[in-house]
Structures are given as C-alpha cells and as structure tokens.
C-alpha cells in the first residue's frame, strides 16, 4: 500500500516536472531544452525567497511568476524571430538559453549547494498503511492533482486550449481569425516556463539545489512527454502515473534496474504507439 | 505499351467506426479511362488510396494483371506499373520544378540509386524531366523553387510527377482542380494524350470534363458503388442524379 502512495507522489512530481515541457512542445512545437534550466532557476529563486521571507509558500507563489516573466522575455526577444524557420534551429537557441541561465545562476548564487527546508506544515510524517509517509509527499499528490486537473481543463477542454492548438498548427490562418498570435505564443511560453519553475519549487525540499539539478531531470521529463503523446495534458498525466508506479515498484524489488525499466517502458510505448499513448493519426493522402 | 488490368475484390477501409470504403469490387479493364464520381466524402480518394497502398485495408484484395498486390508496399506498386496523383498536392518543396521532375525520372530509371556518380551525369534523366516539363506547361518556371509556384501551377507539377513513372495503370485524383480556365482545354488535351495505352481512373467533379473524356463512369456513394456504365447511362440514372448530379445537370 505504501508503495502505491509513494508511487503516486513520484507520479505527480514527474507530472509537475514535465507539464511545462509538454505544453511548450505540444502547443508551440518547440523542444525546449532549457526546460531543465528553468526548473533549476525556479528552485533557486524559491530558495532566495525563503531566505528573505522565511516562507516556502511565498516562494511557491512567486518563483513561478518571476520565471514566467523571464520566459515571456525570452520568447519575445529570441524565439519570436525564428518561428518561421525550421524547428530544429530552436534547439540551438534553447541550448543557448541553458548556458546563459546556468551562468547567471552561477554568478548570483555561486557553486555551493543551497537548501530549502520542508515547510513546517508538512515536516512531520504521517502513519499510513503501516508506513511513515512524509506528509510533504501527500501534499505533492494533492497539489499535483489540482494542477493537472486545472491544466487539463484549460488546455484540453477550454477555448484557450483550442486557440493555442490552432496557433501551433497554422499561425497565419489563426491570425486571420482575429487571434493575436504573437500574444498567444508569448503566453504559452511564459506559462510553460512558469510550470517548469513550479516543478523546481515543489522539488526543492526533496533534492539538493545545485547547478546540475536541471540537467538531470530533463530526460525524465522527455520520457513522460513522449509516452503521453506530445502536447497532450491527459497523456502526460497518464504517463506520469504509469512511470511513477513502475518506478515505485522497481525501487521496491530491483532498485538497480529502475532506469532500464523506465527506458524499456518508453521504447515499448514508442514501438506500439509511435506517437504516444494519447495520439491521433491524420491521413497520409 | 498496353495498360494493365486492375481489379479489386470487396475492398474495405475503416477509420474507427467510419466505413469509408465498404466493400467495393470492380474490374478495371485495360486501356480504358474510368471516371470516378460521387459526393464529397463518398470514399473516392480512400478507394484510390487502397489501390495505391496508402490506406490500410480492413478487408479485400487488389490485383494488378492478376497478381495480388494487396500487401505490396507503395514503391513496389509504382515499380509494378501503378502511378497516381494526389488530391492534396505533394511536391518536393525546397527544390526547383526541374529538380522535382528529375527525381521522378531517377526513381523510375534506377532500382538502386547510383551513389558513385554525380547526379549531373545522367543525361537521359534530364531529357525525361524536360519532356514532362513541356507537357504540363511549366517550362517557363523550370528553375522556380516548387513551393513558390501558384496553386494551379503546383497542381500541374503534381500531375507531371505522376507521369514520370510511365505507369500502365494511372490513378488521377482531381488532377484538374485548380487548373486555370485558360489552361483547361490544354489540360484535357494532355489527359487525352497521356491516357493512350494506359488504364486510367480519374476522379473529377467537373462533369463536363468527366463526361467528355471517360469511356466508362463509376459512381460511389457512402463507400459503395452506386452505379457504373457509359457516360450516358450514368447521366440518365435517377439515383445518380439525386445523389450527386442534381436535377439540372
């Protein structure tokens, strides 16, 4: 039982990490390699806010906003001029972002480890199913569920989502329908960046805060995004659950095989449903 | 050259719950031009996709000259003599019109693409391409990047690419759509000329043209054959009139 609860917490953590990536990927067609760097930045800014105010919750509220603002600026200044070009050039661009963000973090906070303590409210474990479950994990489950539900409603179900998807596939046509495409794009990139930072903030009490932290999560994020089907929030939720549970079970019975399990799962998915679990096929001719 | 015989047996193509083609059997006899007509969404393109290998069949068989080609991949069908054009234009963007056509010629002339000589050293390929360029009326645009062509010119290139494989059975999906009023006569002329000695299946909504060029007409409605016969027979068929042509046709 406790494995399931822990598995759920792993799942929703994974979802929070990957949500921003899948959003930007699916909605703008941009593979944002800088996602991990924005995640790291979120954690660092949260650390700074905790230093100033002593409150994790203010960090949780503000850090994503700050990073979203930065995302908006990045989109306006750098991404906007290259939308019309082959998508692969965006890889070079987002790769550049990583280096610049990392350099900035190094300049501001230096190389040494930072830490964000578990918020007091959730610092004690709770007894559940014969295990001591960290209450912060329970918080992650609830918070992750709320965020995923919100995103699902906004992106997959609402008019905004429709507008965003239309913009991503044919921006010129969308524009003739009265949609301010450049604003939509900025908004999506900002939202995606903010979500990346949100992931960083939520993970901050669990992991060391250091320069490499973003780099190490990016592959996990990709796995979730791929299994779920690019850009599908529903898919990302499902994939995160699948993966979280698989990892929890993996750690229980064969910890050293966990990474292999993860990638095998990914490969099996791609071979059976190449476009991810929640994908739809168009026509070829 | 003689056209091939194309036969389909109980072809079915389904997309989820939708039966786009629901059991079509028909034998296309060699050296005849068949007009395929029917309302929008009747399954004409899908039937053509089934014949050319672009759709996955949920049932049925396709024969070319009595050879079962149901499982043959697309390129192999082309090599076996089956050519087609697409309703939604598919050309090689980023290359000039001439390069587009040269590629068609390379694909046709070489089973294994030569990798030991520069592509410029194949004069016959160039000749083939230039001949078709002339035929479809794009000679003056030979060096224009294909994606910069106007819609109508792209449609012409689309047909040109199909001709290069010199198919015995030719499937044409609305080749005349988008072709300018002024060029229509010329295009009909082209069709008349190239169909000689081939078996042709032509989808077209311009009734004047279809009635004029077809030896026989096949009518599809809701995934099934509604009628077939000579143009006059079909024109007179009341079921066809109400489903497709309208009363004043």
């Amino acid at each position, binding site marked *: 039982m406790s494995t399931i609860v822990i598995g759920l917490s792993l799942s929703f953590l994974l979802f929070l990490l990957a949500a921003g990536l899948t959003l930007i990927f699916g909605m703008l067609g941009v593979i944002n390699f800088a996602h991990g760097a924005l995640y790291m930045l979120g954690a660092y800014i949260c650390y700074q806010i905790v230093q100033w105010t002593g409150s994790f919750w203010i960090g949780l509220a503000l850090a994503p906003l700050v990073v979203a603002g930065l995302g908006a600026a990045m989109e306006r200044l750098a991404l906007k001029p290259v939308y019309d070009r082959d998508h692969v050039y965006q890889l070079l661009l987002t790769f550049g972002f990583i280096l610049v963000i990392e350099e900035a973090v190094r300049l501001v906070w230096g190389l040494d480890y930072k830490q964000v303590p578990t918020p007091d409210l959730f610092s004690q474990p709770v007894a559940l199913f014969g295990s001591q479950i960290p209450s912060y994990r329970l918080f992650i489950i609830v918070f992750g569920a709320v965020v995923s539900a919100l995103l699902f409603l906004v992106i997959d179900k609402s008019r905004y989502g429709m507008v965003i998807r239309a913009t991503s596939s*044919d921006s010129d046509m969308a524009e003739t*329908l009265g949609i301010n495409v450049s604003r939509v794009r900025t908004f999506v990139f900002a939202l995606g960046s903010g979500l990346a930072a949100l992931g960083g903030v939520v993970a901050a009490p669990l992991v060391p805060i250091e320069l490499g932290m973003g780099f190490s999560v990016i592959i996990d994020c990709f796995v979730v995004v791929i299994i779920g089907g690019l850009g599908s929030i529903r898919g990302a939720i499902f994939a995160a659950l699948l993966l979280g549970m698989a990892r929890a079970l993996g750690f229980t019975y064969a910890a050293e095989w966990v990474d292999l399990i993860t990638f095998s799962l990914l490969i099996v998915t791609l071979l059976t449903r190449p476009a991810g679990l929640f994908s739809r096929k168009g*026509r070829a001719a | 050259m003689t056209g091939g015989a194309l036969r389909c047996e109980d072809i079915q193509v389904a997309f989820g719950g939708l039966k786009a083609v629901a059991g079509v059997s028909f034998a296309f006899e060699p050296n005849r031009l068949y007009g395929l007509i029917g309302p*929008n969404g009747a399954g004409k393109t899908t039937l053509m996709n089934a014949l050319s290998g672009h759709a996955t069949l949920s049932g049925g068989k396709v024969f070319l000259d009595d050879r079962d080609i149901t499982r043959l991949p697309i390129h192999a069908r082309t090599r076996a003599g089956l050519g087609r054009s697409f309703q939604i234009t598919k050309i090689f963007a980023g290359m000039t019109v001439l390069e587009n056509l040269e590629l068609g010629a390379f694909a046709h002339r070489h089973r294994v693409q030569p990798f030991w000589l520069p592509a410029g050293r194949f004069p016959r390929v160039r000749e083939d391409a230039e001949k078709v360029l002339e035929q479809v009326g794009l000679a003056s645009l030979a060096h224009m990047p294909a994606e910069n062509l*106007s819609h*109508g010119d792209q449609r*012409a290139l689309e047909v040109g690419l199909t001709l290069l494989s010199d198919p015995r059975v030719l499937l044409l999906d609305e080749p005349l759509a988008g072709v*300018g009023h*002024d060029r229509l006569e010329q295009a009909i002329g082209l069709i008349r000329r190239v169909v000689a000695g081939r078996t042709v299946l032509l989808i077209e909504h311009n009734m004047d043209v279809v009635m004029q060029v077809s030896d026989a007409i096949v009518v599809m409605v809701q995934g099934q054959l509604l009628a077939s016969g000579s143009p006059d027979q079909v024109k007179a068929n009341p079921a066809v009139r109400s489903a*497709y042509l309208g009363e004043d046709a």
Partner: protein
Amino acid sequence: MTALVLKDCDVFYGKAQALHGASIDVADGEVVSLIGRNGAGKSTLLKAAIGLNPLARGQRLVGGVDASAMKPYELGRLGIAFVPENRRIFPNLTVEENLTIATVMGRTGPWTLKRVHQLFPRLEERRLSGGDTLSGGEQQMLAIGRGLLTNPKVLLLDEPTEGLAPLIVESLIEAIRMINAEGVAILLVEQNLRVPLKLAQRQFVIDNGRMVWSGTTGELQANRERIESLISV
C-alpha cells in the same frame, strides 16, 4: 460606401514582385470577382487584403478607414474573413473546433454553428473527427463554414468551389447569394467562370500582377473574347 479598397499595391515575395500597383474595390453588399490565369497574382492579392502579405507600397482601406498597417488579426476583428485556396484546416482541431474557433474573437451575427450545419450537413455528421481526416471536399466546406462563422463584413473567397461535388456547388452558390443579400461584401476568385458570371456584379481581370481590365459582368460578357485573350496563354 466601399467595404474594402486596395489602392496601387505592390507586393513582393523576397525579391520577386508579385503585384504591381494593383487596385481593387468592393462596395458594401457587392460581389466582385477577380479572374486571371494560374500564377497571375489572384491569391497574392487576397492575401494582401487580409494582411498576410505586407504592402510594400499602396493602401488598404476598410470601410473607408486607412488600414494599411494593420495586422491580419486586426483586420479579422474588423470583419474581413478569408477562405484560402488550399483550405488550411487546423489538423489538430476537430471539425467542430475548426468552426467554433472562428467565433472566439466575438463577432456575432446571422451565422451560427447550426446554420453552417444546415448549409453543409456533412460537417455535422463528421463533427468530432479530426480536421485532417476529412476528404478534400469536406475540408473545403469546413474552410468556407469557418469563414462564415466569423460573421464577416467582407468575405474573401479563393476558389471556394474547388473539389466540391456539383450539388454542393449549387448550394454554395445559393448560400453566397444569401450572404450577399444579408449585406456582406464578397471578393471572389474562381477558375470556373460559370460561378462568377452568375454571382458577381463587377469583374476584375489580373495578369502578371497587374489589373488589366475591370467592368461590370455585362461588359465582360459583351467583350468576352477580348478578355479571354487577355488572360490566356
């Protein structure tokens, strides 16, 4: 009052000039048609009207007001609707979403989802299918329906009958008459001359990016041979 005016417009693709000082005007409640051979610049002119092709020189007036510098989305909100030649359906939206997206900018009027469904019953049957699974003709219906749902003041139609079955063409012609009767100005590009001759009050002929003739439909019919010689090879 003129709904839409393009005056002395130059348009370039890279270095190549596609329009040379072309002018056209559509009055309120009028149907105007633009004809010319393949590659003459018809689509280019429509795209210039909706702002997708920037004007290197010249003016665009909407309802008498200068809109030369406006972006496509501003023109769209002003009530100009565009039905493009290659349909440009949003592949990742369902059929119904492809229609409702036209309503997000908030223009209301006589056109509703229901009415579009009446015009093209096929679209109702395929409501929940992905936009990119439709047949060519169905996509054409969808593109037209989408344009109508913006409840435009000016409707730009680029070869709207391409790929449509004869019966549907008839109902489309009826629909265009009806829309026009409701006061919408229409700029129509068609290859099939039958349609513009039926519908349009005035005709413009373009060749090589230049307007070479304009006049009423009656005048066109009177001078048909001369005009056909203008636009054929």
